[in-house]
């Protein structure tokens, strides 16, 4: 690069725009070339305030710890005792979030069931219905009741251990789903009652109810059909967590699943994923407040999802008042998604390990987010299940480690007082003190 012009006057250094970054420019070029917005899988990739901005303080003179290898720290959780005669009993408070057969291959769904069952927790169906692989390998299976009602039938409903009415998803609050034609194989098309190869739209609203009063009646119908036996969850995106949680409780939910914007999707518009919704950190306390205001905290369970990666995240979510968490993207990574061993093939697809998110195209080198029979052969559901089990066990051990250090003999005993925040934003969202202070923005009586 020339540093001076022909007269010897130095050039200024080339300066990249902070507004028109290379990433943004590539978005513009892609839009100009195709005329269609970018569709991808996964959750928000932008940096948002997160559980990484919180720290546990651990024990001190005022609080004493539990012995790591001798004293028990319980991890079990019961979900759905409010109305269901058969609530779900889980050994660990980490569940597998809803992911559809269609978005995932049958063997991948089988692996989720195997791993979850081996770890003593539940897995969840998704848009597209319940597959025999999934039901057969899941000791506890939550059946999602979605706006599209693809594959929805009363026989499978009665086989479920819980029902999750999906109102919203953290990656796309207010948006429906899509499954592009490449993934509408014969089996997927048959389950969804659609022509093969079309771009399938999933509705953003339920077809037969609108609003909280209707939801109450819908819950009544589902309970009547299933004999009031199984818990009914309501899943909402992290849009208006206080009001959505309040309305779900009033409509009769046994549990509320709250999904932050880091939560993944099989496919939606990138602009939706990155610009609609709230971070998981920001939505827990308003939801817990709603539960407390109605006297329902610990009676109606709160399950948080969206960007949960480690036992530390689990412990922090629970310290803020969640009863359990759900993982989706992290579970896929445990199965082998975005594994470096496929780097050459990711490069062929124009991406790299860790960044592969075109799950909707059905070309997943790892054989997980695909319906291509050849790619699916690469994935071993038994091995995948073992890996997921290991990962769930590690997360649980990590959460227990932290809980013991805070002197807690059950993960549910973690509390906001165990935490401090590293940033003002995190302090305000989590309502825990900024580290080194006894203050957070919005704390009552402080004038801020």
């Amino acid at each position, binding site marked *: 690069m020339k540093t001076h012009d022909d007269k010897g006057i130095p050039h200024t250094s080339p300066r990249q725009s902070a507004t028109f970054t290379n990433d943004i420019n590539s978005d513009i070029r892609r839009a100009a070339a195709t005329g269609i917005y970018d569709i991808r899988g996964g959750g928000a990739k932008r940096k948002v305030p997160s559980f990484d901005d919180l720290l546990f303080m651990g024990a001190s003179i005022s609080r004493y710890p539990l012995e790591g290898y001798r004293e028990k720290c319980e991890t079990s959780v019961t979900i759905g005792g409010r109305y269901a005669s058969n609530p779900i009993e889980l050994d660990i408070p980490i569940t597998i979030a809803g992911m559809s057969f269609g978005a995932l291959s049958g063997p991948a769904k089988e692996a989720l069931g195997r791993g979850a069952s081996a770890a003593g927790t539940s897995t969840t169906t998704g848009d597209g219905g319940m597959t025999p692989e999934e039901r057969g390998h899941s000791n506890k299976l939550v059946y999602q009741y979605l706006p599209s*009602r693809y594959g929805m*039938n009363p026989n499978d409903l009665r086989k479920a251990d819980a029902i999750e009415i999906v109102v919203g998803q953290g990656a796309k609050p207010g948006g429906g789903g899509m499954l592009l034609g490449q993934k509408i194989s014969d089996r997927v098309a048959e389950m969804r009652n659609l*022509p093969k190869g*079309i771009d399938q739209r999933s509705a953003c609203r339920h*077809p037969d109810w609108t609003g909280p009063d209707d939801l109450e*009646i819908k819950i*009544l*119908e589902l309970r009547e*059909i299933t004999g009031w036996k199984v818990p009914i969850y309501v899943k909402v995106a992290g849009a208006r967590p206080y009001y959505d949680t309040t309305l779900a409780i009033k409509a009769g939910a046994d549990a509320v699943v709250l999904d932050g914007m880091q939560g993944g999707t099989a496919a939606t518009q990138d602009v939706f994923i990155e610009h609609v919704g709230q971070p998981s950190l920001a939505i827990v306390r308003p939801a817990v407040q709603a539960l407390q205001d109605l006297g329902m905290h610990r009676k109606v369970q709160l399950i948080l999802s969206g960007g949960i990666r480690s036992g530390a995240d689990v412990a922090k979510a629970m310290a803020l008042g969640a009863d359990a968490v759900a993982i989706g993207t992290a579970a896929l990574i445990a199965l082998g998604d975005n594994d470096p061993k496929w780097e050459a093939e990711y490069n062929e697809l124009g991406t790299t390990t860790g960044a592969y998110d075109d799950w909707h195209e059905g070309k997943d080198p790892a054989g997980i987010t695909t319906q291509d029979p050849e790619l699916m052969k690469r994935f071993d559901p038994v091995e995948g299940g073992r890996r997921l089990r290991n990962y769930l066990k590690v997360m649980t051990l990590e959460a227990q480690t932290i809980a013991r250090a805070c002197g807690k003999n059950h993960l549910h005993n973690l509390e906001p007082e165990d935490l401090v925040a590293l940033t003002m934003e995190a302090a305000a969202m989590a309502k825990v003190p900024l580290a080194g202070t006894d203050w957070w923005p919005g704390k009552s009586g402080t004038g801020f």
Partner: protein
Amino acid sequence: MQSFDLEAQGLRELNATLHAQADDTNQTAWEIDNPKGAHAIAVGLDAPIEVTVKGSTGYYCAGMNQQATVNVTGSAGPGVAENMMSGKVVIEGDASQYAGATGHGGLLVIKGNASSRCGISMKGINIVVHGNIGHMSGFMAQSGNMVVCGDAGDALGDSCYEARFFVRGSVKSLGADCEEKEMRPEHIEILKELLAEAECDAKPEEFKRYGSARNLYNFDVDNAAAY
């Protein structure tokens, strides 16, 4: 005939009793008195029984029905026969919104009018409405047949897939990607059968057929204005 007083015995008892009927039950005829607009009456049935509701019902009457025949002598609230899999549901009066929503099979007959979003997301159910249907009926309808002996409101069949709509009267407007289609002999046969089963004396030849133009099946930016 088994009688059940809903007001006196309660909804839970009603549905539990009906669910307890096996395929070979000899208690095949049931009459429900005093429905008084209650919700979720006779939902989730799965036996070859005939249930007559003496009056009008609230939301989701006969929801997810399998095998059973459910007759409502009055009118039905929202979501009647939603997600029906098989069997038959007959409403003597009118039906509110979302009648037959997402139904996979069976026959829903509405002898009066049906409100908006009749047959929304239908997935194989057959619906015969003796009167008119409201706006956005057949929205995202996937398969099955909807027969309307009267008129259809705005945006019939918006974004539909392979469902067929037969309308005898006028259609106020068609929804995105819905168009009038040729009536072929096989469609006349379908209509004949459905009209007979729905006890409707309309003539198949009087109907026009509507369905998907299939232009929106795969996204094309040039069609963006249609969404």
